[in-house]
């Protein structure tokens, strides 16, 4: 290599090596700030992020779902049309696409807010949720949060934020959709289940998903199946509402999804 390029090449190589090293290492915290990692590990190193669908190995059990269902007696379905509000992280959009069809089939109205990369802390600390609750005035809520907190070593630290979100929701019936784990259990589901009201948490952990290329997000089709599972479970939840499977005649529903981009807090 020509000598005048050596310096720049070394600089770029060192920078890349450092970024990769940080990406694979444990969280680095400076003061109260945790250094965000470049996504090399997720992209290249498969073991850490293998999901059940890809390796075909992890034994999938539905026991936890069944166990949680045993605790609750079936309550009568509320047959009134609802104003449904769904909010959460980037999993929300594909779920909302399917939920929109359920809404149309069952006479509900659906509004959704998809906030990329968001987590419980962001929703709890910003005025966004209060704003949309005030705007849509919903009487039923679906929450899809937790996917961006799967790797937190101590999920109990997120509990105050979950509680804050639930307090903002107040008396409105809700279903918290647990993250579609693509990794071993990190107790986030346990924390969410323990914090949510009985019969208001849907544990997605253990379900099989076909993932997108990022190995994290379920594909559109897989998300639809995921939503179908939630709706099948709904009659057994604490606040069942009409959830008849959409007929094939409902081809395309105009989605009322607001997109918020990542805030990177």
């Amino acid at each position, binding site marked *: *290599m*020509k000598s*005048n*390029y050596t*310096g*720049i*090449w*070394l*600089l*770029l*190589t*060192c*920078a*890349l090596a*450092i*970024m990769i090293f940080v990406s694979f290492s444990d969280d680095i915290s400076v003061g109260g700030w945790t*250094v*965000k*990692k*470049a*996504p*090399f590990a997720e*992209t*290249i*190193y*498969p*073991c850490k992020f*293998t999901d059940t669908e*890809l*390796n*075909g*190995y992890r034994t999938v059990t539905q026991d936890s779902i069944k166990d949680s269902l045993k605790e609750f007696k079936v309550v009568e379905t509320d047959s009134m049309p609802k104003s449904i509000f769904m909010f959460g992280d*980037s999993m929300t959009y594909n779920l909302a696409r399917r939920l929109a069809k359920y809404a149309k089939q069952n006479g509900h109205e659906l509004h959704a807010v998809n906030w*990329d*990369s968001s987590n419980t802390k962001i929703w709890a600390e910003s*005025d966004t949720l209060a704003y949309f609750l005030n*705007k849509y005035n919903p009487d039923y809520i679906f929450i899809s949060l937790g996917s961006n907190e799967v790797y937190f070593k101590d999920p109990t630290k997120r509990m105050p934020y979950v509680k804050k979100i639930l307090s903002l929701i107040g008396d409105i019936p809700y279903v918290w959709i647990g993250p579609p784990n693509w990794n071993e259990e990190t107790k986030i589901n346990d924390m969410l289940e323990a914090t949510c009201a009985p019969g208001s948490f849907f544990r997605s952990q253990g379900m099989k998903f076909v993932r997108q*290329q990022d190995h994290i997000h379920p594909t559109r089709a897989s998300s639809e199946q995921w939503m179908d599972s939630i709706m099948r479970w709904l009659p057994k939840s604490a606040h069942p509402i009409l959830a008849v499977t959409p007929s094939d005649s409902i081809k395309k529903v105009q989605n009322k999804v*607001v*997109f*918020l*981009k*990542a*805030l*990177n807090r």
Partner: protein
Amino acid sequence: MEDISNLFDPKYISPIQEAAKNIWHLLAYDPSAPMLFSSGLFWMLFIIFLPIYAMLKNRRGQMVLFVVCFSLYFYYKSSGFFFLMLIATSMVDWFVSHIIYRLKVRRARLCMMWFSIIISLSILGYFKYANFFLWNWNQMVEGNFQPLDIILPVGISFYTFQSISYVVDVYKERIAPTENWLDYLFFLSFFPALVAGPIVRADYFLPQLERNERASNADIWGGLWLIIIGIIKKAVIADYIAQYNDLVFDEPSLYTGVQALMGVLGYTMQIYCDFSGYSDMAIGLALLMGFHLGINFDSPYQSRNLTEFWRRWHISLSSWLRDYVYIPLGGNRRGVFRTYLNNFLTMLIGGLWHGAAWKFIFWGAMHGVGLAIHKACRPVLSRIPDNFLTIFIGWSITFVYVSLLWVFFRASDFATSVLIIENIFRDFNPAQIPQFFEARTEWCVMMIILIICHFLPQQWADVLQSLFIRMNWVLKLIIFLLTVQLVVEFMSEEVAPFIYFQF
């Protein structure tokens, strides 16, 4: 520990196989993940590219072949097999340019030039404007419009303009055609400028390729400095402030006049940071390789009138439009009315170049009207003395006009644009400004810093650049690392394609 029995299962995929598979996926064409200069993948590939380029630099033929291959791969990664179309375009241009060069009869040369231009414009027209024209046709005849399933190849508007300027320059005998087809393909597919400009002119670029001079240390480190500035503008500032702007433009009825005004101001700065940031990265990369592409943005919002704005904004496009549209139309040589008309038509084409939609045509037309008005007022304006007040008034009118036109450029339709502007004028309550600042402190602080930086003298930026060039290697590494970490901290989950990507 991993269960060893897994190894005998046909479903088992070892971590290495899985990693290889993932990397293969990463390198293959993915329409949802075009390769941007700010992406990790690009930098990984560039680290491999650079030493090979350096080794081949003195062997011109091999260097050209290597860079062409890399550029074509770069294009493949963004546009799939459309890279074959790029090769085909270059072949046609190259053959036609040689025929033009050899022909002695002017009319025959002219025919060949138009033949090449028509081919280039037909390809651009089909991919970019077919659905637009079909839609309008169907609106007129009230037919059932079914859009054609057309994918717009990335950067086609940029390389089509480069291709046209090359053939016209050969016809006008400003340049001789390249002896070697690969040299021309190198020019047309040069990866730093391939997908989003700047629009490189053959008479400026090809002599540099001919000389094949080694990049000096000032070029290399100056190039890295530009890349750092570009990354900050594009991946940190533009992507961050876009988050709020998108809210306003997506549902303007939800926002007050103050919020709408901030959204418009935000978008005004966002489009500048987005596009000039990417241009800076492209220019920096080229400089690092020893090629000068010239500047593409020169603090455009400092302009005191619209004519000056277009001398500072997207300079490679505005100079291209001047040389290949405005002047051939007659420029200012055919009387006052024709000058205004030529100006208007040039800007109309400029608007249409930005996208196949009426909103872009309107945006271009209004800039054309603004330029014509400025030209008409020049005799009066030239008599007004230059002082702080007149400078401020001129700047304010220009900035407000440009910013308002960005609303039409950004909003999804005309009605949304009108709604946003109506909001600003009808529902503006200054008392809400402190509340807005309180609610969006980070956004406001970033905007204030950005505006201040934009109005700093260019000399300050030059001083910083020369300081960086002379800086110790370790300090440079730290600055680069901090920049990359800043990008990671601000990184959206989905990469926001830069605004000019599809143009």
